[in-house]
């Protein structure tokens, strides 16, 4: 944790990368008739994105928790070293 600014920048890039990747493939959903039933209606109405966002929020929340826990342990390690 030497240069905080650089750290935050790379963290933001890591978070945004998968969102950039999603753009193209998300549009490539074409429903076809007389085939096994899939969640087409949900996709057409666009509500699948609600589910995706909910999961992104949950996973991000859990990861933020883990990152903070990681930081706390790092601080504790330093403290135990100096005492």
């Amino acid at each position, binding site marked *: 944790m030497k240069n905080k600014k650089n*750290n935050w920048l*790379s*963290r933001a890039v*890591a*978070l945004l*990368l*998968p*969102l950039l*990747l*999603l753009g193209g*493939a*998300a549009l*490539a*959903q074409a429903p*076809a008739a007389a*085939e*096994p*039933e*899939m*969640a087409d209606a949900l996709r057409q109405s666009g509500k*699948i994105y609600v*589910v*995706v966002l909910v*999961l*992104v929020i949950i*996973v*991000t929340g859990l*990861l933020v928790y*883990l*990152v903070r*826990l*990681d930081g706390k*342990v*790092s601080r*504790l*390690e330093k403290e*135990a070293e100096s*005492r």
Partner: protein
Amino acid sequence: MKWWKYLTIALLLYTVVMGFLGHVPRLAILNETERNLYFHVPMWFGMTIILLASVINSVRYLRNPSSRLDILAHESAKTGILLGVLGLMTGSLWARYTWGTWWTTDVKLNGAAVTMLIYAAYLVLRGSVRDEQQRARLSAIYNIFAFSAAIPLLFIMPRLAEASLHPGMGGNPGFSKYDLDSAMRLVFYPAVIGWTLLGVWITEVACRLAFVQEKIYEKQEKQLA
């Protein structure tokens, strides 16, 4: 933070987004549930890899005892058990909506359940020995048994069985047959790496905490002496 932790974050977010929006082949019965391939299956991959790390540390402990190696083996086993329990729960839910039942006496299912019981006994064993060195030694030996029982139960017996509902077992085609549609591989492999790394990360934090705790106890003992 180390580089692989950023990789974990990127891979998991990619998995969650592409896991739902990516292309999957149209299959009867499975329908959209085949997306579980990105979530249920990586639990077992992660569990196996982390339990392997655990048993390696147990063997290292027996060759050259140190509390550090005991902690590494113990914390890895705990994370492995967590992933295995999540795998059992998600598998059961998936079975309910594709096979029509929460549980069936399938070799693959029972093998996985027995594996989790064997590892539960590892935790029971650790909890029942007070002396630290004895606990470390006993549990290291038990861990070798647990891992060598888990591999045949999970990967060999189900494949030898005459019939199994589970994909890839008992003459049943695995998902590798479906995701020849390589769009699924593009999500599946990152998902496996991402979830496994998450397990490694959790284990790493738990180990570091245990190391610090030990260091503090040692210092306190020195001050008292």
